[in-house]
């Protein structure tokens, strides 16, 4: 094994193993704080509003949405892609950084994976709701039926989506849960409450932590890492193919798969940053999720932001270079200028320009600024999907069929509802599960605390 001096101190404050257990489990043993109840109240409210929108859509039909013949995909697909993108960070964190042996992931991966699961759950709701007749949802799976049997169209990206997203949800959920088993065992052995002992006893699957157990545990983790890393790339490539296999101007480009994958990692890391800043603040985890950790994420973000900017410019160039007047119209007359220029320039500003501020050390070290920029990234990535979906559909080949689109209250409420669902999931995670992987942090404690951090030098 090698040690890196570049990353510096991962866990500050010369902690013992027992300190780490105590510190990470402390929020779970404390009384539920007031902010938690307030946040849970608002999240539940949002969720109920979403349930109303859901009920409205299912009982009346898709007519309650602002869609029309041209713009047949609106907020539903925008939000779907946005949530899936956010969901990418968890796996990117645990899997990519596991494979390249980046030890700083250990303080963050648990929270990032939790975020992934709730985001993918929120994303998965949209295709279901968009079916309108949700009770026919079983049609998306190839099952033995009495109509032939007539199977699915395996050439359709929508079917690939079904396969990709269910695999992604399964793999990340299993990986997340198995990673928590040793920590559940820690709670089981520590707690004095009978109730907790029972619950975490069930959850910990009888974990004992002997040598053979750890060997299998580590092997399983690295095997899943090897399998899920291509999955991270393939899921969002497949989502992008929902668009790029069509002939709609602005969608029919080969840049889409890499552009979507990078965008997903960008938005995911942005959301991880938002959440980790909150987590370390409310639970006082500053020694475990250090400024160095946040610094590492911002450095990745500034790089990914450059790729995003390059992708936007490439799209513009290709629109001109392709010689297709429809492509050129979509990009120059309907995105850069025209009805949707606000959305387009919001996207450019939030994704390609504002994150460039991370080049400055002063801004990287100012956590408030980092937090604000991470919010901008989340907003910018939503607008990116809005630009892609709505501009291309609203004005395509025939001016006679042009239409405009604006969402109705039902669509908005479903979106707010999924935010509520996500927040409620995250809040439950904050309250009932060790938010940082205790056993993994202990594993990196010794290798890193002896080095001095580059971030603390001044």
């Amino acid at each position, binding site marked *: 094994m090698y040690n890196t001096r570049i990353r510096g101190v991962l866990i500050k404050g010369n902690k*013992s*193993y*027992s300190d780490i*257990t105590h510190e990470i489990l402390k929020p779970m043993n404390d009384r539920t704080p007031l902010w938690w109840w307030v946040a849970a109240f608002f999240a539940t409210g949002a969720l109920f509003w979403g349930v109303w929108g859901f009920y409205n859509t299912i009982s009346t039909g898709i007519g309650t949405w602002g869609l029309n013949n041209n713009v047949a995909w609106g907020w539903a697909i925008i939000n779907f892609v946005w949530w899936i993108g956010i969901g990418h960070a968890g796996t990117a964190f645990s899997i990519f950084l596991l494979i390249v042996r980046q030890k700083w992931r250990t303080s963050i991966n648990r929270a990032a994976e939790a975020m992934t699961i709730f985001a993918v759950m929120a994303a998965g709701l949209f295709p279901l709701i968009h079916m309108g007749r949700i009770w026919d949802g079983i049609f998306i799976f*190839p099952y033995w039926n009495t109509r*032939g*049997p*007539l*199977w699915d*169209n*395996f*050439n*359709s990206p929508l079917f*690939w989506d079904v396969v*990709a997203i*269910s*695999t992604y949800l*399964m*793999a990340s959920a*299993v990986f997340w849960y*198995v990673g928590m*088993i*040793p920590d559940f*065992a*820690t709670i*089981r*052995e*520590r707690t004095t409450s009978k109730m907790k002992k029972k619950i975490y*006893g*069930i*959850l910990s*699957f*009888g*974990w*004992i*932590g*002997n*040598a*053979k157990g*750890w*060997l*299998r*545990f*580590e*092997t*399983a983790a690295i*095997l*899943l890492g090897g*399998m*899920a890393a*291509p*999955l991270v790339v*393939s899921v969002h490539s*497949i989502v992008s193919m929902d668009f790029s296999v069509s002939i709609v101007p602005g969608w029919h480009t080969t840049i889409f798969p890499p552009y979507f994958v990078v965008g997903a990692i960008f938005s995911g890391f942005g959301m991880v940053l938002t959440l980790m800043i909150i987590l370390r603040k409310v639970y006082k985890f500053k020694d475990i999720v250090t400024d160095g950790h946040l610094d590492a994420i911002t450095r990745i973000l500034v790089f990914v932001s450059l790729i995003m900017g390059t992708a936007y410019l490439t799209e513009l160039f290709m629109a001109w270079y392709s010689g297709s007047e429809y492509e050129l119209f979509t990009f120059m007359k309907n995105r850069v200028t025209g009805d949707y220029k606000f959305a387009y320039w919001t996207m450019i500003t939030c994704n390609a320009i504002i994150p460039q501020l991370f080049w400055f050390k002063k801004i990287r070290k100012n956590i408030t600024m980092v937090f604000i920029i991470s919010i901008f990234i989340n907003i910018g990535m939503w607008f990116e999907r809005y630009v892609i979906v709505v501009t291309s559909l609203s004005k395509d080949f025939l001016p006679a069929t042009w239409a405009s689109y604006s969402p109705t209250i039902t669509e908005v409420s479903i979106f707010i509802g999924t935010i509520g669902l996500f927040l409620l999931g995250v809040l439950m995670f904050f309250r009932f599960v060790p938010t940082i992987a*205790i*056993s*993994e942090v*202990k*594993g990196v404690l*010794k290798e890193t605390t002896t080095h001095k951090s580059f971030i603390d030098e001044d």
Partner: protein
Amino acid sequence: MRTNIIGIYEDDDVLLKAVDKLQDNGVKVADVMSPFPIHGIFERLNLTTRMPLATFLYGAVGTIAVFGFLYWTSVVSYPLKFGGKPLNTLSFIIIMFVLTIFVGTFFTFMTYFVREKMYPGKEVTLPVPETTNDKFVIVVNTTDDMTKADIKKINDLMKESGAVEIKESNINYIS
């Protein structure tokens, strides 16, 4: 009745040296329990796992099974042209790729749980509960042919190598 001699340590590096010392003196270390995986312990205890092979086999079988299903449904059971594409199309690769990962992941973890005999609600008693927090434990099985002197020797070796506590326990934690 089989009992275990259990040496409790407070540091993983000390424990590694202790394992070396015990093994150099001909004592068979049965197991080590720790709050996190200790690097170097698997080689010392000669532990190996065939899980990678199992995963490869699951993946291979998964790929073939998925292709078989797609081919059978699209070419044999109900041949139906979509967009002028051949019945046996390249699109299958995408589905095969993703479902191979699905099958590989799912069955790898099933194998993990089966081999570890882990299931929800399984009850275990740890000889030293603190091994899930900050203690490291070496377990040595006592056998019938061990004399009192042998046991004392093991105790002494553990003490010399830095054990903070040594005890005998007849808890059978591996079920």
